């Protein structure tokens, strides 16, 4: 959670727009959010990723003002908003169910927030037209929400939450109510609109693909606290814990012991693998405990029929199962130790000759591929 260098768009300023400081929320005796601190710079799209019950929605509701933190501060644009009611916060939210007012037309829904500010009629109309144009819904202005499709409702919900030009936009499971095909299209469309407006955005999702597609940075939440914060690449390629590694994508984990710990390489022996694991760089932190976990992503492994020429970074086994997924196949190889390892193979040829069930094979990987995780 410490200083992680993010490769985000250059427009992001240094001073954080939103500061969450030591926020804790207790429901009766259950800690839903446990001392969470986060800084989110202006213009960033930030995703809280976690399973249900991880506390991500509670944190979002505290930002919107629907729940009060048990302790801690929420600071938006330098102002402490912790105790402000929702209707006084310069924050707007797009609800998971969209929560469009069913008795109002699209136009009236978008104008609702502006009316609360007692703006003159012509100004409201101008802003509503601008919003309708932004989300390409101008021809549906007079419709009621139930006459719209799921994707159209989402656009209206987005327009409504952007109409007041909030300092912070909250998205609660933005694609939760859409089918898979529409989801991919709307993800990119949503990001495009948000970046066009330039609003700071915090979203909550349980869908890792959604978080990785849309967000500049992601925080993985589990049991009320933040496991890791970083860019999608950071989180995927350098997870800081087993929890983070296992939460995103698939990964193979092996228990092992560090036998050599040098500045330029590390060697780890695992009883699950035939050959030792050699990693071509030193480990940043000196480990007190030599017992560690080695993690290797399935797409960073190779399956061959011939024994690799080296005496490191491989293991032998037989193919237990194959899942053909079109773009690639996932091979489940039962190693000699009995451990099953996942290995991906890209289907680059239409009818190439590939290993099949019960074939003896070797699984190998590059020196740069494994990640060492604390026990």
């Amino acid at each position, binding site marked *: 959670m410490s200083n992680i260098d993010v490769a985000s768009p250059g427009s992001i300023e240094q001073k954080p727009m939103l500061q969450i400081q030591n926020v804790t929320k207790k429901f009766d005796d259950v800690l839903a959010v446990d001392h969470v601190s986060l800084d989110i710079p202006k213009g960033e799209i930030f995703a809280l990723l976690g399973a249900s019950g991880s506390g991500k929605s509670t944190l979002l509701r505290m930002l919107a*003002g629907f729940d009060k933190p048990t302790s801690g501060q929420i600071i938006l644009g330098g102002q402490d908003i912790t105790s402000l009611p929702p209707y006084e916060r310069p924050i*707007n939210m797009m609800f998971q169910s969209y929560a469009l007012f*069913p008795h109002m037309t699209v136009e009236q829904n978008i104008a609702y927030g502006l009316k609360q*500010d007692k703006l003159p009629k012509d100004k409201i109309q101008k802003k509503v037209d601008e919003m309708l144009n932004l989300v390409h819904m101008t021809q549906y202005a007079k419709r009621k929400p139930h006459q719209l499709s799921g994707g159209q409702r989402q656009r209206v919900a987005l327009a*409504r939450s952007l109409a007041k030009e909030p300092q912070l936009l909250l998205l609660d499971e933005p694609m939760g109510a859409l089918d898979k095909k529409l989801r991919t299209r709307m993800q990119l469309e949503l990001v495009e609109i948000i970046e066009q407006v330039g609003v700071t955005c915090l979203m909550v999702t349980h869908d890792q693909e959604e978080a990785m597609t849309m967000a500049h940075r992601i925080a993985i939440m589990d049991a009320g606290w933040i496991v890791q914060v970083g860019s999608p690449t950071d989180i995927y390629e350098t997870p800081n814990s087993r929890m983070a590694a296992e939460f995103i994508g698939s990964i193979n984990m092996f228990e092992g012991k560090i036998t050599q710990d040098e500045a330029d390489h590390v060697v780890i022996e695992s009883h699950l693998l035939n050959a030792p694991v050699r990693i071509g760089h030193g480990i940043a932190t000196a480990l007190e405990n030599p017992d560690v976990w080695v993690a290797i992503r399935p797409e960073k492994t190779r399956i061959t029929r011939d024994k690799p020429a080296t005496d490191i970074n491989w293991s032998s086994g037989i193919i237990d199962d194959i899942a053909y997924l079109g773009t690639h196949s996932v091979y489940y190889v039962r190693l000699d130790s009995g451990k099953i390892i996942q290995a991906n193979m890209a289907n680059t040829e239409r009818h190439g000759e590939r290993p099949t069930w019960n074939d003896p094979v070797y699984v190998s990987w590059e020196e740069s591929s494994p990640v060492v995780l604390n026990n």
Partner: protein
Amino acid sequence: MEVTNVQQGNSVFGVIKQIFPGRKLLIATPYLWLLLFFLVPFAIVLKISFSEMVIAIPPYSDLVEFADETLNISINLGNYLFLAEDDMYIRAYFSSIQIAFNATLLCLLLGYPMAYAMARAPQHMQTTLLLLILLPSWTSFLIRIYAWMGILKNNGLINNLLMALGIIDDPIIMMNTNFAVYIGIVYAYLPFMVLPLYANLVKHDHSLLEASADLGARPWKTFLSVTLPLSKSGVIAGSMLVFIPAVGEFVIPELLGGPDSLMIGKVLWQEFFNNRDWPVASALAMVMLLLLIIPMALFHHYQSKELESTNEK
């Protein structure tokens, strides 16, 4: 449907089904019920309203007479004309509608917060609260109105208490006034207002209220611009359920009301039992029915329009 009928036509069941189509039988049952117990009595009352009063049993003339090879059909419009002539009847209609309208408004003002609180109460308490609303109606309606007489009369509960406390020296006259009639009607019909309102409010999506707050509306504004418009059909249903029976109410003005609380139910009773003028009483009932059918038809029209718009999905 026809295809399945043809296929089923081969079997024994199919033949039976063709003779007694289950669906039609099912739909016919309520219609038959309405025909027997609503339309036939209605036709009888309509018939009597066009007859003339005679001193006989039954106390009205026949519309169709056959004597001396002549068929006489006499339709007497006099009863209706009589209603228009005597302004007592017009005043009774007017004051019935006025009292029913005011009572409905009072029920709405009292019932809405009750229904709202019930719908917002914790889940496990809602059943108990519903039961409490219904509980009084387990006792006879008449007994409950008599109980109000005991409470409101000059030496009743309220006056005795206030005099014992020295707040007043002379009893406040509450019995036999319009005030007592209002108390009676509001008391008796409040559940009919609360129940449809509760049924409507409990279905409201809580996230709409949060969305409204999120967009900058204070709680009171949220209530006016989200909760209230969305409960419109509940308000209308509850108001109809109170207004319609209240217009024709007889027991409450008779027992709690005074000589000046003129309601059509009471007038109808007097025509029927005191004057034994069945034709005029029937004409009174017909006009009252017409007066009530208009708001009901409007309500029905509105509801079916509402249904249409929500079904357009």
